[in-house]
């Protein structure tokens, strides 16, 4: 079996910023355990001499000239924001301090 247990999923959920209930953690752990088990074989065929491919079609030096283009207006920028104030995106406090 793989290393994915409830604690591992809790850590991953924390890294991914997804709150999960105990039930969800347990269910997810079970599902991922099966999935990871079934895809583990990839590490067995990946020999050291094989280069990694990160892009299916190799291109390089794709650049943009340093010329200013069209920007959004402040209204457009904020149009989808859940909350805003003073032309800026408003977010809850960053630190928890009572």
């Amino acid at each position, binding site marked *: 079996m793989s290393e994915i247990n409830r604690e591992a999923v809790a850590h991953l959920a*924390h*890294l991914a*910023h997804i709150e999960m209930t105990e039930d969800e953690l347990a269910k997810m752990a079970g599902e991922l355990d099966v999935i990871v088990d079934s895809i583990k074989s990839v590490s067995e065929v990946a020999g050291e001499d094989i280069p990694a491919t*990160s*892009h299916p079609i*190799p*291109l*390089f*030096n*794709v*650049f*943009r*000239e*340093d*010329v*200013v*283009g*069209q*920007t*959004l*207006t*402040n209204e457009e*920028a*904020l149009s989808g924001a859940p909350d805003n*104030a*003073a*032309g*800026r*995106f*408003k*977010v*809850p*406090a*960053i*630190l928890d*301090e009572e």
Partner: protein
Amino acid sequence: MSVHIQDETLSFEEAMEKYDPVLGFEVHVELNTNTKMFSDAPNVFGDEPNTNVTPVCLGMPGVLPVVNKTAVEYSILIGLALNCKIAESCTFARKQYFYPDTPKNFQTSQYEDPIAYDGYLDIELEDGTVFRVEIERAHMEEDAGKLTHMGGAAGRIQGADFSLVDYNRSGVPLVEIVTKPIEGAGSRAPELAKAYVAAVREIVKNLGVSDAKMERGNVRCDANVSLRPHGQEKFGTRSETKNVNSLRAVERAVRFEIQRHAAVLESGNKIVQETRHWHEDTRSTTSGRPKSDADDYRYFPEPDLVPVVTTPEWIEELRSRLPEPPAERRKRLQADWGYSDAEFRDVVNAGVMDSIEETIAAGASAQVARKWWMGEVSRRAKEAEVEPTEVGVSPALIVELDRLIQAGKINDKLARQVLDGVLAGEGTPEEVIEARGLAVVSDDGPLLEAIDAALAAQPDVADKIRGGKVQAVGAIVGGVMKATRGQADAGRVRELILERLGVQG
């Protein structure tokens, strides 16, 4: 709100008796390209919030990055100026962490293969000794947006009720310059720290690739400090102090951390590897809250960008664009200006060489420029505990004051009062002179009356002058200046006295 606890420190001398400091720096340089690193939004400071943004800067669904060629070239120029090797091929990577100023919740950066690596910088300390700092790497990345914390204590994250995010800075091109561990600086570590950051700032400014204004965050420094007992090979645990954003602060922060580390080690405790925040007001660091994702950024190759491949031709073309290196430039400027070694060193150490160059370019003589920057401006800087460049005196203002002195409208003493007025926002020098009634008494009539009175009051001195002892004229000048409450042009007074007595000056 948490209570701020001041950490124990040992005196710097005691710390140095037992320990060797090891330093390391991560300096972030904002490039002054027209557009951002991965989007064609303008790279401009100080505009209305969230106006210099495209969907890319806001991390909108569906957007893709495209690399700014000029930013790549500026990065290579920085690498070359730091004597680095330039990567034949390098890639971008995603550094993943959640923070509201980071619109994609990852920063597009470089990880395994930076554009520049293995360089060095020779740092000249105040007494002329040269210390080589080795550069590990310089890599390209993007800046985050700006958070403003509202409610609670003014502008602080602690105790804030909510925060506001402006993404105008989001995506501004950055080059992060990372040193190798710097060993052997001993008690000169704080001085070296300041000199290193000053050198990097000077280089990027000289290259023209950054506005290099620390007060605006164009150059930002994170300083790593660790201590180890004399004779020990192994490095101690380090702290990383962030938010060290002036040269003076770099020096002070390194000094403080050395003293704090020493106190912790002396008390038999262990240094915690952590981020520290520098506070200019208390001149101390405090422990930063550990970032939740700090231990796992889950870097992986940026799939939306393709590699940057450099050719020798491209690099040589860029190398040919390199301006005169700062050290050579200093030699040339000293010769041009005719300063003595001591004078020039003082100018460099005071951090006013560029200001003097600009002042001379604006029309002042080398001597006048030095007089102002090393005299009045430095005095005010010291009083206010800021850098001379932060006093608010521009080269143009100095040229203007000098012009007014040369024209006999004001004298040196009045010029200082004019400067007070200008810095207090009372208007142009001319306006301040007018408003404060500071013009020198230039009507010879009242002056002659005062001269006659002074000569009559000191007839023996008048005789001496008539007899050829011209240097005695000072006593009469003094009397006249006293009588006119300083508002006379001393030079003109002297002329008139000699004229009155029929003596050649």
